């Protein structure tokens, strides 16, 4: 499959748009449909598409497995950190009203970071799952 010229060029053309769409879904989730979960899956799908077209090694050069494993935890910690930020600023856990003097603005800020945390974790988990399965297939083939 990696030798298919049309597929490779189309994949290269589509990649930026897929990643851009993921970012759009992530950060426009306040106003339109979408949010961290959907954006994370779309971003992971883009990388998976790249991996299918150009081979697993190329994708892992672009997004190393170590980075993915770190991001797995970073997303959850970011989410939990927003909660602790609320505590530190004198509110309840996950209380966004205290994140900014203007409470509505504080809500916006809280939701933004929380969604970012969800997006990072979901994208990392999906990608890690794919790496795991694809990597095993290669090992089984070698053995």
């Amino acid at each position: 499959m990696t030798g298919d010229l049309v597929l490779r060029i189309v994949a290269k053309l589509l990649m930026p748009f897929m990643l851009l769409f993921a970012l759009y879904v992530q950060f426009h989730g306040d106003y339109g449909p979408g949010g961290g979960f959907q954006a994370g899956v779309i971003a992971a799908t883009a990388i998976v598409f790249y991996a299918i077209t150009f081979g697993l090694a190329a994708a892992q050069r672009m997004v190393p497995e170590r980075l993915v494993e770190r991001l797995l935890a970073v997303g959850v910690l970011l989410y939990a950190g927003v909660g602790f930020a609320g505590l530190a600023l004198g509110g309840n856990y996950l209380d966004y009203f205290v994140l900014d003097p203007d409470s509505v603005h504080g809500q916006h800020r809280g939701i933004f970071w929380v969604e970012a945390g969800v997006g990072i974790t979901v994208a990392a988990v999906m990608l890690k799952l794919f790496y795991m399965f694809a990597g095993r297939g290669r090992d089984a083939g070698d053995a």
Partner: protein
Amino acid sequence: MAAVVVALALQRNLFGAVVLFGIYSFLMATVLVALDAVDVAMTEAAVGAGVSTVLLLGALYLVGGMETKPLVRPLAPLALSLAVGAVLAYGMQGLPEFSDPQAPIHVHVAPRYLNQGPKETGVPNVVTAVLASYRGFDTLGETVVVFTAGAGVIALLRRRQKRK
């Protein structure tokens, strides 16, 4: 959609089953769009039709493409699923009519979310407001669940790799 489900149940070739599963997810996404649940439809299309199809194909590559013939006729499981289906259908009689505005779910906290949500959070998409703000704890739990699932897969699959 019903046709796809029947074909899925009869399919012995696992590759065909995976493809049919993707088609089913995509049809489900269109149903959800028709029900005005765009956020859920997006998730269904991306996860159900996209990522899980790829993951299932990856698993298929490892285990081979044909389902083995069942050793015994699966009559007991068939009876059990028919019984559960009958119980569920019986239970559905007690549910309020579809899109009944007086249904309990619509008179408890939903009006407050819908009326006060945009004002309190400044977020026009009520789904996001409920998900990330009113139900922030739930979503934190869900994120931890996703994280745990990922960590579990890493723990399971990596050990095998080291043994080789």
